């Protein structure tokens, strides 16, 4: 190369640099990328002195499509496979293609010329490269001066393609983010609509409580309850096979179908038979529904239910569990299926119905909770009244990992009808208060004729619980209060302590082994040893804690 051509090359590079800077800026500042890219491709064609220029982008299906085209022939919308033609190769190899003589180059797709009458002589094509590979290609065709593109032109096109690739890639990312957010918003809306279909919690000691925890935004599980004309209460809990959107849509239909059938069905078995026949007509693609339906008579406290492939119900009397099977096939499979019924005299016991999501929750080691695990959790919270108990149970399940939609329905008459209050005290969380509290508690227990040895132990347990609250929940004496409520229900003494401290992690309240001799940590061990059971849960509304301790009194005369 002689001096003048070197100088010419230098001028050419400077011009290219100036163009690149301008192009990068216009792409970076663009608010409407489509429009800016259209202009950019025109300017690239001018800068490269090309007769035609086009921009191809990969669509989600992996096909290249001409999105922008300038020149005598409009090939917008032209589709190519990756690897096909010059553009396809640039993308497949993620490398710039230089075609000096189109007439003899095997890479060139001659069909386009044949269809359009355009004569392609020389082609440059640079991939739009990103960290994830090529997302498209930029192609220029035929020098306007009739000459051939050379290696220097190819290098310039490669450099010019870079800011275009970056701008398009950023725009695609932004678009997918917007799309994701839109889907998220719509799912959130679907979740709200779905949640609004579940029955409202009824106050005033209504015996049914339900909770639905979707594994994702929306759920294939549902529950429902409603009054029958004769005064009985009908209830439903169901689980549509599969998860996600289609299960959720089906759940909406199945829930209304079951509700409709439940309004007039004479018995739970007839109810399931009718719903099953209907579902066999409408469910498709191997979908099915597991459900329990039942009728509860508050006057006699008897419940009758039938199950269609739903996990066995658990009946808990506060001491032990009974598993109740009432098994028939899931709904939507066999049109002639029959269902058997179970009738239970509920009394004061609790009937738990739960979808398999409740036993499928995983711990950090991926072990499933299982039916045994769920029983342990229920037993742990048996001390509590139904509403806080269900809340505590849900809290436990949420601490584990839900892998499936989880629904629980609890049927139990609210206790407390036969309970009578023995003591209600609210006092500042200060150790100096405890002497008075102990005195009041002794008096209350004496009035119930509790033997002095047992009385003193119960006083000790309550005292230890209070000082634990002062030390570990309030982190020292303060003017906030502790409320002590003592009630007796038949032979059961129930001690409730409420504080207004931040929620305490129950696992931090662990008894230590009494066989080791050291000064600290005795308080919880005393409570453990002296009470039959106790549980610590967040109070209603998420502020404060409720510690509930129970002691069953032995028959009169042998209080210890």
């Amino acid at each position, binding site marked *: 190369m002689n001096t003048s051509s070197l100088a010419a090359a230098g001028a050419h590079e400077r011009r290219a640099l100036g163009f690149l800077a301008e192009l990068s800026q216009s792409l970076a500042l663009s608010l409407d990328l489509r429009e800016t890219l259209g202009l950019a491709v025109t300017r690239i064609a001018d800068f490269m002195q090309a007769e035609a220029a086009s921009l191809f982008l990969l669509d989600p299906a992996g096909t290249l499509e001409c999105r922008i085209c300038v020149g005598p022939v409009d090939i917008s919308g032209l589709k190519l496979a990756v690897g096909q033609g010059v553009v396809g190769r640039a993308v497949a190899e993620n490398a710039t293609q230089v075609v000096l003589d189109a007439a003899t180059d095997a890479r060139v797709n001659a069909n386009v010329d044949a269809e359009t009458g355009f004569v392609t002589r020389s082609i440059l094509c640079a991939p739009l490269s990103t960290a994830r590979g090529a997302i498209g290609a930029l192609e220029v065709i035929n020098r306007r001066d009739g000459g051939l593109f050379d290696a220097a032109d190819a290098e310039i096109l490669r450099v010019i393609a870079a800011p275009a690739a970056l701008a398009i890639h950023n725009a695609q990312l932004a678009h997918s983010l917007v799309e994701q957010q839109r889907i998220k918003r719509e799912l959130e809306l679907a979740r709200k609509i779905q949640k609004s279909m579940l029955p409202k919690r009824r106050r005033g000691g209504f015996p049914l409580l339900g909770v639905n925890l979707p594994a994702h935004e929306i759920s294939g599980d549902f529950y429902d309850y409603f009054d029958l004309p004769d005064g009985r209460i009908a209830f439903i809990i169901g689980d549509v096979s599969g998860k996600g959107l289609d299960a959720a849509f089906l759940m909406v239909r199945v829930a209304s179908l079951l509700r409709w059938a439940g309004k007039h069905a004479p018995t739970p078995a007839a109810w399931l038979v009718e719903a099953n026949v209907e579902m066999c007509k409408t469910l498709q693609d191997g979908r099915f529904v597991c459900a329990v339906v039942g009728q509860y008579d508050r006057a006699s406290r008897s419940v009758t239910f039938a199950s269609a492939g739903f996990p066995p119900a658990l009946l808990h009397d506060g001491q032990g569990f009974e598993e109740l099977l009432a098994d028939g096939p899931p709904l939507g499979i066999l049109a002639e299926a029959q269902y058997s019924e179970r009738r239970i005299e509920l009394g004061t016991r609790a009937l738990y119905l739960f979808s398999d999501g409740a036993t499928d929750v995983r711990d950090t080691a991926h072990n499933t909770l299982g039916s045994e695990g769920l029983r342990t959790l229920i037993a742990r919270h048996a001390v509590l009244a139904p509403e806080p108990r269900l809340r505590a149970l849900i809290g436990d399940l949420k601490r584990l990992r839900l892998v499936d939609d989880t629904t629980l329905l609890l049927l139990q008459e609210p206790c407390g009808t036969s309970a009578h209050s023995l003591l209600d005290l609210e006092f500042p969380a200060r150790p100096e208060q*405890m002497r008075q509290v102990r005195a009041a508690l002794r008096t209350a227990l004496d009035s119930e004729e509790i033997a002095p040895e047992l009385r003193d*132990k119960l006083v*000790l347990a309550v*005292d230890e619980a209070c*000082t634990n609250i002062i030390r570990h929940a309030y982190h020292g004496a303060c003017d906030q209060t502790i409320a002590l409520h003592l009630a007796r229900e038949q032979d059961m003494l129930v001690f409730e302590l409420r504080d207004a401290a931040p929620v305490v992690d129950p696992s931090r309240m662990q008894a230590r082994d*009494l066989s080791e001799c050291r000064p*600290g940590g*005795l308080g919880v061990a005393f409570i453990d040893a002296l009470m039959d059971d106790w549980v610590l849960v967040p109070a209603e509304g998420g502020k404060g804690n409720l510690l509930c301790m129970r002691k069953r009194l032995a028959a009169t005369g042998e209080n210890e």
Partner: protein
Amino acid sequence: MNTAENECVSETLGDYILVRLRGEVDLSWSQQVRRAILDALGAGSKVGVELSQVSYIDSSGIAALVEGFQSARGKSQQFGLVAVSKPVMAVLQLARLDKVFPIFPDAETARAG
């Protein structure tokens, strides 16, 4: 006994220091009891804690006794409980400490032991 004022008095009987407690030992003043026991162990080699007038003791009070016992054992000192009242004994049993502490019926026996 329930109305007894809380009290903690240390008496020196020759080479023996007796910490006499009265009332209900709980979190409101168990730190004071702990200090008195540790001070006694700092002043003499034989220490007893007299508990006949104690109508109530909680875990923080028991902790003060355990700390005294452990401190004494570490320095080969003598530490015992004297005239343990029935309510205190019940809590010691509950904490499974009734066989851990040397327990004496009265100060005389404790001094001799």
